[in-house]
């Protein structure tokens, strides 16, 4: 046996011993960003002593990695943003069923997987933002109305590549039907004041600067700007209050199919739905807690109450490809 192979065997043996000595730990793959999850992880570690190791990346690479690792994955939990992604993870059989009374009691059914494969943890509304200087909120009504000629050259949108817009389109196809939705999207594109933005923050700043008058954004982007500049001449409007309600998306998590620490992972997921965790999880990003018994932060609450779309959020995943193709066809890039 050569020196090299001896060293290899010793190394393998050592790594095995090391594996046995490990204390309570959890491994998380997350597409929710570092600075939005670390505070919750720290809190849990402080409370229970469970060490949480994690990596962050976009959803698609994380899912590809989970799939490639298969039964040998070190990951116990997958945290993502957007229901469409969670649905995809479920379709690819990356998540396991978790029957939990705690989760069922804490999180409304429409924000959970029908097969108990994942649960929402925080909510974000994708709603209309308008210039308080140039728009009378009485002239606003629905998402669809933004396609009217009245808004010609006044609308701003974010890129269609962002999953939030794909999910919004998918739920519209589900409720309105394909034809009417395509018409609305075409109207939006025709009304654009400027090429679409890569992110909601730039969009909101352009409304404030006067490049456009209305746009569709996630609530927390507005919250972040409002904290930095309370005088910002932009406000949120809740559309479709007389029919289906505001489009709401989630960030959520599921226990992986081949989790190495399933009990710890389920315990952690349950804890994430409780008040202590929900407050931090939602508040760091100015989102709404998915647990409806918990009040949102003061800032978030100041935007007022609204009626949320009750369509099952899984639709976002089921109709994602259809939505993207439709957006491509109308020239929403």
């Amino acid at each position, binding site marked *: 046996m050569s020196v090299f192979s001896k060293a290899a065997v010793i190394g*393998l043996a050592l*790594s095995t011993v090391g594996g046995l000595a490990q204390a309570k730990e959890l491994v998380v793959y997350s597409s929710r960003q570092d600075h939005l999850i670390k505070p919750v992880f720290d809190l849990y570690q402080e409370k229970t002593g469970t060490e949480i190791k994690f990596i*962050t990346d*976009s959803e698609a690479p994380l899912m*590809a990695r989970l799939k490639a690792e*298969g039964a040998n994955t070190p990951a116990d939990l997958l945290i993502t943003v957007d229901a469409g992604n969670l649905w995809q993870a479920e379709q690819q059989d990356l998540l396991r069923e978790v029957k939990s009374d705690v989760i069922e009691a804490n999180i409304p059914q429409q924000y959970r997987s029908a097969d108990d494969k994942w649960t929402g943890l925080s909510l974000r509304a994708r709603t209309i933002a308008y210039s308080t200087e140039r728009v009378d909120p009485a002239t606003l009504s629905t998402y669809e109305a933004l396609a009217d000629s009245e808004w010609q050259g006044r609308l701003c949108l974010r890129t269609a590549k962002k999953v939030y817009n794909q999910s919004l389109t998918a739920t519209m196809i589900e409720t309105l039907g394909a034809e009417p939705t395509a018409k609305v999207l075409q109207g939006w594109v025709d009304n654009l004041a400027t090429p679409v933005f890569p992110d*909601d923050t*730039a969009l909101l700043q352009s409304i404030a600067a*006067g490049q456009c008058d209305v746009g569709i954004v996630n609530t927390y982007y507005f919250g972040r700007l409002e904290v930095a500049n309370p005088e910002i001449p932009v406000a949120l409007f809740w559309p479709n209050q007389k029919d289906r309600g505001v489009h709401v998306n989630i960030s959520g998590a599921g226990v992986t199919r081949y989790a190495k620490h399933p009990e710890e992972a389920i315990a952690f997921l349950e804890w994430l739905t409780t008040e202590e965790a929900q407050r931090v999880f939602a508040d760091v990003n100015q989102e709404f807690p998915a647990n409806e018994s918990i009040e949102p932060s003061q800032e978030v609450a100041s935007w007022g109450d609204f009626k949320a779309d009750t369509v099952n959020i899984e639709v976002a995943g089921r109709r994602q*490809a259809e939505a993207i193709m439709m957006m491509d066809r109308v020239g929403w890039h």
Partner: protein
Amino acid sequence: MPHRSIADKRRWRLVAYSAAVLVLLPLLVLVLSWGSLDMAIWTHLLHTQMARLLSNTLILTLGVTTGVVLLGVSLAWLTSMCEFPGRRWLDWALMLPFAIPAYVLAFVMIGLLDFAGPLQTLLRGWLGSDFRMWSIRSTGGVILVLVLVFYPYVYMLARGAFLAQGRGLMDAARVLGHTPWQAFWRVALPMARPAIGAGAALAVMETLADFGAVSVFNYDTFTTAIYKTWYGFLSLQTATQLASLLLLFVLVALYAERRAQGSKRFPGADRPRQGALYRLSGIRAWLAFGFCLLVLGIAFIIPVLQLLYWLISSGKTDFDSRYWSIIRNTLLLGCVAALATVTVALLLVLARRLQPLRRVRSAVALANLGYALPGSVLAVGIMFAFSFADNQLLIPLRTWLGAENPAPWLLGSLFALLLAYLIRFMAVASGPLDTSLARIRPALPEAAHSLGHTGFSVLWRIYLPLLLPGILSAALLVFVDVLKEMPATLLMRPFGWDTLAVRIYGLTAEGDWPRAALPALSLVLAGLLPVIVLIRRSAQRPG
């Protein structure tokens, strides 16, 4: 001594082939992806997207190539052949934009120049709210940004070539009655052409692989389509099929470049020129100074000031204890990756020099392909190769040895990440090494051979010392490129190995650009020192 040289030859061939295989293994995944076609997605892409994507990509590539050649060659000519006020420091300062990642310059430029940015807001304040100017979020804008970040490739290589040209040739041209312009077009430029071509090729490959900057501009290219197919349609297979088409295109382009270049190689002058050839004076001197300063200002000074402004105005809340470990990780990865990549690249260029067979040349060319692949696609290929080895070999082996639930060993290891860097940046290291090697006249090693030195001894005593400047340039280039690398680092890093680029990703993914100023500025600072060393050193001894 025929027996020895045959063994030598076989060894060099082996080196070339194994490096090619190393690079090709992950690329194999791309080829294997053609097993079946997702017709729905392909039909959709062909009918509604492809024409726009191809024309966008073509315009971008042509625009960036023209831009980097014009800017790189003119700046290199001014700083290496002329004398004017400020030339001494502009000479190295013009390399500084290389330390700025394309995605960072993209978000700084848009933050600065878009409608809601400070410049337009100021102008509207003066000229009325109806004032409109050219939009930075346009084809011209994205070309401008990529030219500003990629011109240093051409600048550095062209500058080295101009410096290495002896003064004698230009003098001869002048004696024969050429004006300085004619001498430039007929002598200096043709001789520098291989170096300029190599620089432009690097810029083109970076452009084709770029995802960060074009997404900030929402400018759709072939590469953004690859990502969209993967992230949106969640069809990794179709995405890899698209990626292999991109690779094919690069292959053809590289081949064409090589054919056009032919076998022209110009050994350097015996004694490199000392001092400037042309002393500019009066208005021409100041024009030269102004031009260099303008480029430096737009590509480096203003972006850094903007980042500083964001940093100061957003506070330094992110500077916690983890930050130091992030900087340490970034630097460590850069150093180790540079060392490994340059070693392998050196073996490859030597193999091609010592064994100039067609097969060896092709193997070496293939080994350089990784650079043109979008980082994520390459990372996925490596990820599949490693998880295959993990699942089929290592984990069964360790289970057999008694381990309980062994975790994957290769995937998520430092080794995997370093290999990804190696494959991706091989081409970057090859460029300077190649140019350095071409300047070693065949007569030198032949003389050593005739004096009885064997293969290794010639390598050690002749090639290595003469290649040293090229080795240094290659190492520094790879180091800076690894610092800036984002997609492969994201996917393959071990737990806890966050780098500055990963930090930037996390913050910009949420549109929080000002908050990304701290890691972005740290990244620029970390890349600054190597860049200065690089250019100052090559000024002393043309590499």
